[in-house]
């Protein structure tokens, strides 16, 4: 149990997808204009991560890894399908995103319209594929750990995106130099947020 909590905290704060690895920046910057929509996107990302990472974990452990196929027959014990991981991971992610899109369109058409093109673009969001690849690299022991990691990194993404959205709503009427308005100042804010998130870096769990 303690292990699962540690993985969650690590994914959310210490190894935050956005502010420690700067993954998933495109939708992060584009959909952080209002707190409401960014909240929606954040939950969509959590949802997608929560499904894709465990599914990819199973694929990794029962199909791709060297010797993973031995559960079919002992003859396949030497097969290593690791080179297929990118293609398979992306295929899983793309289909899950398609599903999410349909669900959101059904449940909340307003959110669907507000998110616009960025909803299907979650499929190419680096944070999602990054999550799957981190899962592969860190070799989690069981599916519980993979789910905990997915929850943590998704929560960290959500926290970062709503935090940025609230700041952007606050500075909407600030007298920012014209050249920096919009994306320019957002980049600077994200950099400064990165400094603030350094407070967790170095914690060993």
């Amino acid at each position, binding site marked *: 149990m303690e292990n699962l909590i540690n993985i969650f905290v690590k994914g959310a704060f210490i190894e935050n997808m956005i502010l420690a690895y700067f993954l998933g920046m495109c939708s992060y910057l584009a959909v952080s204009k209002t*707190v409401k929509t960014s909240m929606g996107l954040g939950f969509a990302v959590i949802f997608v991560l929560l499904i894709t990472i465990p599914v990819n974990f199973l694929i990794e452990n029962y199909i791709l890894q060297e010797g993973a196929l031995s559960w079919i027959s002992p003859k396949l014990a030497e097969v290593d399908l690791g080179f297929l991981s990118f293609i398979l991971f992306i295929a899983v992610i793309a289909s899950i995103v398609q599903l999410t899109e349909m669900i959101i369109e059904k449940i909340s058409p307003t959110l669907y319209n507000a998110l616009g093109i960025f909803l299907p673009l979650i499929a190419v969001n680096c944070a999602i594929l990054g999550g799957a690849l981190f899962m592969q690299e860190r070799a989690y022991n069981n599916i519980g750990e993979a789910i905990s990691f997915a929850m943590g990194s998704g929560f960290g993404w959500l926290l970062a995106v*709503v*935090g940025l*959205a*609230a*700041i952007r*709503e*606050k*500075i909407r009427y*600030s*007298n*920012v*130099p014209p050249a*920096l308005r919009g994306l320019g*100042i957002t980049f*600077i*804010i994200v950099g*400064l*947020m990165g*400094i*603030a*998130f*350094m*407070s*967790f*870096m*170095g*914690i*060993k769990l």
Partner: protein
Amino acid sequence: MKNGKLRQFVDKIKPTFDKGGKLGFLKSTFEGFETFLFVPNTVSLKGSHIRDSINLKRTMALVVIALLPAVLMGMLNTGYQHFLSQGQDVAFWSGQALWYGFIRVFPLIVVSYIVGLGTEFAVAQVKGHEINEGFLVSGMLIPLIVPVDIPLWMLAVAIVFAVMIGKEIFGGTGMNIFNVALLTRAFLFFAYPIFMSGDKIWIGGMFKGENVVDGFSGATPLAEAAAGNLDSLPSSMDMFMGYIPGSVGETSTLAILIGAFILIYTGIGSWKIMLSATVGGLLMGLLLNVFAVNPFMEVPFWQHMIMGGFAFEVVFMATDPVTATQTETGKWIYGFLIGILAILVRVINPAYPEGMMLAILFMNVFAPLIDYYVVQANIRKRLKRVTA
């Protein structure tokens, strides 16, 4: 002193700086100095408005006054620690200690003000608006949160960064998201770590190693506690009075309490933030005491209040009215989380000896979000009242 010599002089040179005058391009600089010296005589004539003797400059001046005890104790302590490291027996309350502290700390203050205000004046000139006086407080805070041996040019670079990137591009005073003084410190900490951490930097002259007595460590109480040497911690009274190594102004909890009293009495600093941050810190300390698995966690929870920069930053940084939450409910949440995070980072994270700076910066990030949800909750409550 109506229409004294100075006023006459200012009036005489005023036309030179008006539009079309010889030095018209320096108008905002001139106005900055004029309003610093005299109360502006322009009043609004139409519409309803409130007339009060308090304005931005006076608010800032009051905070600077509240900081003076910490400055004095900081100077005395700088001298005291210096002579201690040299093996000379100089009393804490002595002219010698004060004089050494003064010649070490005063340059920091001068550089801080000149560079910071210079940046503000330059920006105001370029953008062609009035000078923001927002640096008056930051300029005094910055020298108090750096180690006394910091090279002056580093301080200058960090201040330019913090004022430009942290404040001016967000629209100047009152618009910044991050506390300027803390951003300066964070910049120094990450850019020049050698000069910002370790045991040797806290005592004047020790970094260069001039005549330091053998066996004098110079470690701050926090460093001692982190290393597990709970026995060599100074007594609580010493830590409370400030006879310990540390950043210039953060050592004396007594001086900080006097400042806190001034801030609360004049209504400038929010007592809600101070109280909730202290409660948060105490609770976190207590929690760590319960789970104590290493010596650092065994430090009595109330001692965290008088070690390191906790007291100073709770009183003077967390209560910054610009970067803190604006809603009253939000202030409780904001302060509480600062207290918790500060102690958590301080004890759990081996990378930083002190967690206060990053805890406040972290909560600066989320202050707008807290405000947003407090406001939303309020709207929902009122809507319910209307529709019910």
